[in-house]
């Protein structure tokens, strides 16, 4: 053992005493680089070979289920048209208001249901094949699902924002509010900001910064709307309050004659039915 240690120390001393060669062997460098590259290419190719069946599975599953969805959608559409499903449903429920006919909605839902099923099956297959051959599945795949969820949130939020904005705009215009467009825009941006915050939160981007920014923006929009509506409706509110005060006074001192405002009288002189 002592002899072995002595040999080791001697070797180290010899190595330290001799200066290193200034120019090493070129063939050795290229050999090392080549080895490194080969190993890298090998690793990447191994990864691709491990992942490729998964990617292929995703495409095959998606294509297959899209075709099934198209066929199912066509069959449903033709079947419901043959059965006059829309007419029957409209007779039963005349307040059906979505922007597509019931038949179209069912056919579309069936198609997209199949596509979604294909996507889930494909991603599951991808998960199985990828997990065996790569070191990154744990971080990559959940993020993918989060991304899909975020996209769905974004679509839903945008649709809801548009619907609410139109509802508010039409309602406000018919109520003859001068700030109808402003109100509609406010509601739209409230929903869009909420959606954006939810999407970023879902993607786990930004952390506390997003929450803080959302709180400031949302609160700012609400405050702006409140101020705008409050200031815009000042006359309306004061008239309403005056009316209440007048009515309470009238109860104690009933007038001799009841007067109707001219505008109210004019309004009542039109009978739509």
């Amino acid at each position, binding site marked *: 053992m002592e002899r072995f240690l002595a040999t080791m120390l001697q070797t180290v001393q010899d190595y330290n005493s001799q200066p290193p060669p200034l120019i090493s062997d070129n063939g050795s460098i290229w050999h090392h680089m080549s080895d490194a590259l080969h190993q890298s290419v090998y690793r990447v190719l191994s990864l691709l070979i491990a992942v490729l069946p998964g990617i292929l599975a995703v495409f095959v599953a998606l294509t297959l289920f899209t075709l099934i969805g198209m066929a199912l959608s066509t069959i449903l559409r033709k079947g419901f048209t043959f059965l006059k499903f829309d007419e029957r449903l409209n007779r039963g429920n005349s307040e059906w208001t979505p922007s597509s006919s019931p038949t179209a909605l069912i056919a579309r839902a069936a198609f997209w249901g199949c596509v979604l099923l294909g996507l889930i099956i494909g991603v599951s297959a991808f998960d199985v094949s990828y997990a065996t051959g790569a070191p990154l599945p744990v971080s990559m795949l959940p993020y993918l699902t989060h991304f899909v969820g975020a996209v769905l949130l974004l679509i839903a939020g945008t649709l809801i924002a548009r619907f609410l904005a139109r509802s508010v705009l039409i309602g406000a215009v018919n109520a003859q509010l001068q700030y109808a467009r402003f109100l509609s825009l406010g509601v739209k941006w409230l929903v869009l900001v909420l959606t954006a915050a939810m999407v970023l939160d879902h993607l786990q981007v930004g952390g506390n910064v997003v929450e803080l920014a959302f709180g400031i923006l949302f609160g700012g929009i609400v405050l702006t709307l409140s101020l705008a509506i409050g200031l815009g409706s000042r006359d309306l509110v004061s008239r309403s309050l005056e009316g209440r005060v007048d009515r309470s006074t009238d109860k104690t001192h009933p007038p001799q004659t009841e007067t109707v405002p001219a505008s109210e009288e004019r309004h*009542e002189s039109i009978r739509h039915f």
Partner: protein
Amino acid sequence: MATTNSVPNAHLADAPAKAGMLVFVAPMAAESLANILATLTSLFPDESLLVATPNDTSGTTYPGLRVITTQATNAVWPLTAADFAHASNAAKENGARGVMMLGPGADSLSTAALRGLANVVSDSTFDLALPHYALPPNAGLVNSAILYPLNRALFGSRARFPLSIDLAFSPRMAERLAGIAQRFVNSNQSDAIIWPVSEAAVAGLSVDEIEVGTRVLPQPAEPNINAILTLVTGSLFADIEAKAAFWQRPRRLPPEPRNFGAIHGIEGEVDVAPMVEAFRLAFSNLQEIWSLVLAPNSLLGLKRLSVVDPSAFRMAENLWARIVFDFLVAWRLRTLNRGHLLGALIPLYLAWVAGHLNVVKSGTSSETHVEAVAAAFESDKQYIVSRWRWPDRFNS
């Protein structure tokens, strides 16, 4: 084929009343009901008359009248599917020769009007008899602007009040209406609106109008024009959509209308400025929505209209016809949510009302203007047929 007819039949009102008829009386105050029953007793002295009503008639007897109680309905305006179902079923069960339905406030109808309605049907002359009310120009405006012109253009009917709340019909018509109404009732839509004129047109049954003079018209329980216009117009659009195969076929225009009495003066003073302002506000805010529905020519027409002074404000008949047709097509295509669509129609309707009142103020008869509007709908029928079939040909 529909044989909508308007052959003068004033003699029917003078002839002695016949019976064997079922009279359905809608829910109303006890005093009004008593008045109607007394009138019916005096009208049909020699015949047994069957009265079906959801009102409570216990404790009072009327000679010659047999009263049966039907199920009460929630709606007070207009007649509902449940009312039609109850009346038609009662008529079938009792073998009535005809059915007369009287809506709320029918006690204000004259004896001659009731007799006229009953005789048209009991004489088997026509399958459906509708009243022609004498209304002032500032009343029944939704009917004048939308219901009458659309029914006339698409179903070839000159019935001035397609959504009348009093009517009489034959057993054949009762059978058809019972079928339609029962489907609504079975699907829990008892308050749905039934459109007898279009049903008669599709079934090839004959229709006649009876001049009934003035009548106290009940107003909707919910005074909000937005809700009511949406309800009535939505129901009519749905009915038109369901009968598209029928009205797209070319058909002969109905004969010239008879001259019915009308009230010429506007009750009270009407200021059109708020309605014009409402239209202008909508024009500056709803263009994005209107551009999804209306053709460019119509939008241009509205743009010109938005700068017109309220005193000279008048919507051209063909522009209004195009607007209604475009909204009808958008309803069918579901271009946007149907609630939004009908909400966006309201300011345009108010603009039409403002124009109509200005026309009447200028000395033109209200009926003349309404007939001109209906004629514009008729002459533009090809437009709605084309757009219905090929909705993408938009920029014509």
